[in-house]
């Protein structure tokens, strides 16, 4: 009997030793390969922005992105919240521009690959997105007439080399916008249709230049990607790239029992879609119903794909044309964020609700009901060890 016990102990030891090695089924290997960065296709041209791949447009866009003159008070630029040395985000629960907003700044790696922009997808192109903070009173707080004058004054020659002659702005008021304060709206209404079109066109081109710059911001290779390449080729990972047993377990859970990969799929770890996952609202912030309210906003945006400022034909407008407009699941649905680099940029969720990855994983494990709408997440009852393993795996997407 004693020997039998010793035999069983030996078998158990062998079993445990085997756990340290990558041991993935063919289906798991396929899923892992689909998550690796080398599965990311080349960036497609943007038919709605004919300046998207014009280097001079990207250069002007880069200047504008970092220019604090592109704000009402002269203190805020795109880069105020999208900080170049912080993955183009700001580490704050809610972004602070001219005022405090109600949403978390999003990082920009791979942003040009999105079909929808902002947490709720209220814009349908990168250039239309770039215009929105410029006029948001809590972000850059400017107005489009002032931006057109500013471009003429500061960057007139550069602008004209890219986009052609600037319109005659001499009779355009210094401050005017259909979205501005009362005085700006009144000034806008007093303009001729031709003046409105002139200003809108300069404004749209500002967005197209900034978008051209942002197209260059792409995700970088991580330890996970090197691990995935080695796993696919059967090569022995280099010392630093090998996964620990805990990271291995985390990856297995991520693509298996924990169902993370359901939404966080593909090389950007996102399905580019919107989901209610029961993330609680933040006290004292205005009512936020996510995708539910964004549908009407993107439809009303004059810079959307159906609008007059799109280049190319309407064939590029499929996302807007076939958008889901009314479904119960739009209530408090928010975009699936990419998880690349997430470990080093807390806090998390659309209004910075969770301050650590541990809290995020605990939320998905417990899956509380949504305050409004229905959460798509189901309770997982992950053990402490399993939750820690998921966090360990997520960190490999930042190394």
């Amino acid at each position: 009997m004693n020997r039998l016990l010793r035999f069983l102990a030996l078998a158990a030891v062998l079993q445990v030793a085997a756990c340290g090695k990558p041991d993935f089924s063919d289906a798991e290997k396929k899923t892992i390969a689909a998550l690796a960065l080398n599965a990311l296709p080349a960036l497609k041209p943007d038919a709605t922005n004919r300046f998207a791949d014009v280097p001079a447009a990207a250069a002007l866009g880069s200047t504008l992105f970092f220019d604090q003159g592109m704000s009402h008070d002269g203190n805020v630029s795109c880069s105020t919240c999208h900080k170049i040395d912080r993955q183009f985000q700001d580490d704050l629960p809610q972004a602070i521009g001219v005022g405090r907003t109600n949403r978390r700044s999003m990082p920009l790696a791979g942003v040009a690959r999105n079909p929808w922009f902002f947490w709720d997808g209220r814009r349908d192109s990168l250039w239309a997105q770039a215009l929105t903070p410029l006029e948001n009173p809590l972000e850059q707080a400017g107005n489009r007439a002032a931006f057109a004058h500013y471009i003429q004054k500061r960057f007139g020659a550069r602008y004209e080399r890219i986009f052609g002659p600037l319109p005659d702005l001499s009779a355009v008021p210094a401050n005017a916008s259909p979205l501005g304060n009362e005085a700006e709206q009144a000034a806008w209404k007093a303009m001729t249709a031709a003046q409105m079109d002139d200003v809108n066109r300069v404004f749209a081109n500002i967005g197209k230049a900034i978008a051209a710059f942002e197209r260059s911001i792409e995700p970088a290779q991580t330890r996970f990607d090197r691990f995935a390449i080695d796993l696919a080729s059967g090569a022995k990972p280099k010392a630093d790239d090998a996964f620990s047993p805990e990271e291995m377990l985390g990856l297995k859970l991520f693509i298996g029992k924990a169902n993370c990969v359901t939404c966080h799929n593909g090389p950007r770890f996102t399905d580019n879609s919107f989901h209610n996952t029961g993330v609680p609202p933040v006290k004292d912030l205005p009512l936020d119903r996510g995708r539910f309210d964004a549908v009407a906003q993107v439809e009303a945006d004059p810079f959307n794909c159906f609008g007059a400022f799109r280049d190319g034909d309407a064939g590029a407008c499929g996302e807007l044309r076939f958008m889901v407009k009314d479904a119960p699941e739009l209530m408090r649905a928010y975009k699936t964020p990419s998880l690349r680099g997430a470990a080093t940029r807390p806090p998390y969720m659309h209004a910075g609700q969770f301050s650590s990855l541990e809290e995020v994983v605990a939320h998905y494990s417990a899956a509380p009901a949504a305050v409004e709408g229905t959460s798509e997440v189901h309770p997982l009852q992950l053990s402490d060890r399993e939750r820690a393993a998921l966090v360990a795996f997520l960190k490999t997407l930042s190394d």
Partner: protein
Amino acid sequence: MASLWRYLLAGLGLAALLAGILAIVYLTAPQSAPGPDISRSKKTANGLFVASFQPERGVIKQGELQSWLLTLKTVKGDPVEGAAISVSGGMPQHNHGLPTSPQATDYLGEGRYRIEGLKFTMSGVWQLRFAISAAAGSDTVVFNVVL
């Protein structure tokens, strides 16, 4: 020496026992549930039409807008023309609807209708339900697409 033999015998015995248990478990386990019906051609629910559903460019790409062709024939094999088609669906296992609103956008002749705006954003079983209304009457058909 004798003790080594005893180890081996014990080991062999244990292996045989394990194999036996595994065989019983395996043989008595219920057959895994049959997968969803993934046929691309079938009769509609009330037998009014024969519908077939194929990706227009042959391949299914996850996460990209794409168009499929829905071909409608009568049971006798004649093309169904002038049909009004509406599309709904989702992922029953995930309890959500479609991420887009696909529409029948074009009639290509010979009973073929272009269904545009389909997008499969996740792996798993997708269900697409077509409500079809034509001269012969109204009927529905459901196709499963597995990614």
